[in-house]
């Protein structure tokens, strides 16, 4: 339907039409369809007086109201049947458990309570700091104009190698930058892969971790089986305490 608007030929009279005085729209009393954006808007000669206020037609209420009229169309065939069938289905009962963001650093699968998660973003350049080459602090990154400390959780937890441990940073891989916030303290760290939010049921009394399990020892809460993998759910208090110790 949008293409109809775009391809419609316009008469000279249309082109000379004055801009709508006030961007008011009444749905109930159908006005003749305006396509002012085609002749006096940004796709026309740009002479519309409203452009000074809205800069672009897509910000203008007239344009938005015209878009809304697309929804006044009759529903396509099978639309109602499809929705009826879809809504009648019972949703799968969400498996009990706490929601965790599951991600991978190197070969290690980790889970972090989503309460602490602030953002999962693209990886971006890390600006290294002078005389800070070897530690957990990788540098600072720019997250929407804000400088955040970027740390290597992999190094902190003693994960041997892989993307996100600080040795090799993802280039074109599915690497992500996580921003976490714990009691107002915000840090970012790169991870190799994010598998979204998963509901993991933590055992009430976690078994004591194996002695050689370095990740659990550093900041783990308990290990949980998830899709055949052992996910180490991190304790955010322990994690941030360890971070603060190593950054100090």
């Amino acid at each position, binding site marked *: 339907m949008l293409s109809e608007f775009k391809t419609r030929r316009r008469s000279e009279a249309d082109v000379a039409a004055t801009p709508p005085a006030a961007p008011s729209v009444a749905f109930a009393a159908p006005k003749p369809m305006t396509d002012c954006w085609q002749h006096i808007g940004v796709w026309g000669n740009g002479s519309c007086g409203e452009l000074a206020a809205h800069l672009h037609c897509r910000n203008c209420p007239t344009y938005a109201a015209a878009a809304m009229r697309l929804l006044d169309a009759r529903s396509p065939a099978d639309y*109602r049947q499809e*929705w*009826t069938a879809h*809504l009648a289905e019972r949703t799968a009962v969400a498996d009990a458990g706490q929601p965790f963001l599951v991600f991978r650093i190197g070969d290690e699968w980790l889970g972090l309570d989503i309460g602490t998660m602030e953002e999962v973003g693209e990886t971006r350049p890390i600006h290294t700091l002078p005389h800070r080459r070897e530690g957990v602090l990788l540098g600072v990154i720019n997250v929407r104009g804000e400088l955040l400390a970027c740390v290597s959780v992999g190094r902190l937890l003693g994960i041997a190698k892989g993307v996100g441990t600080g040795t090799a940073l993802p280039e074109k891989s599915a690497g992500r930058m996580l921003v976490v916030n714990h009691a107002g303290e915000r840090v970012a760290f790169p991870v190799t892969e994010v598998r979204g939010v998963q509901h993991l049921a933590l055992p009430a009394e976690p078994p004591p971790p194996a002695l050689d399990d370095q990740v659990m020892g550093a900041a783990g809460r308990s290990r949980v089986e998830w899709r055949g993998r052992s996910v180490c759910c991190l304790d955010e208090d322990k994690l941030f305490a360890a971070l603060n110790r190593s950054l100090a």
Partner: protein
Amino acid sequence: MLFLVFQVGADRFALEAARVIEVLALVELHKIAGAPVGTAGEFAYRGEPVPVLDLCLLTLGRPSNLRLSTRIILLRHEPQPGVVKPLGLIAEHATELANKNLGEFAAVGAALAAPDPRGRLQLLQLDRLLTPELRDLLAVYYFTQSLEPEPAA
């Protein structure tokens, strides 16, 4: 406070978004035999039957238009204090949201209306819409024990 804005005929109405569970497409409804005027029917929502009222039928006496913008607003209805049940309302042009304060709605005649750039915006007062017959019908959905035996605890 966020309000869902829709139309009944030419008039624009607002409903607190916090009361809305979901805005659904206008699904196919099963008619309820002998239901009072204003009832559009029922549909299965996640396996449970939910009664649906047609706001246009209740207010204007004509059914809502069959358009894409006509949708079912599924809201949390409180038939009794402490009892929250789903109720569907068919509304035309249920496509917008508005940010208003509850204090902006002032009594104008029998309605609670707020000024809006696009004309006045009325607050939907569901209690006024529900006739005793409709309440009786809803009570059948909400308070009738199911015939299936309760699963053993």
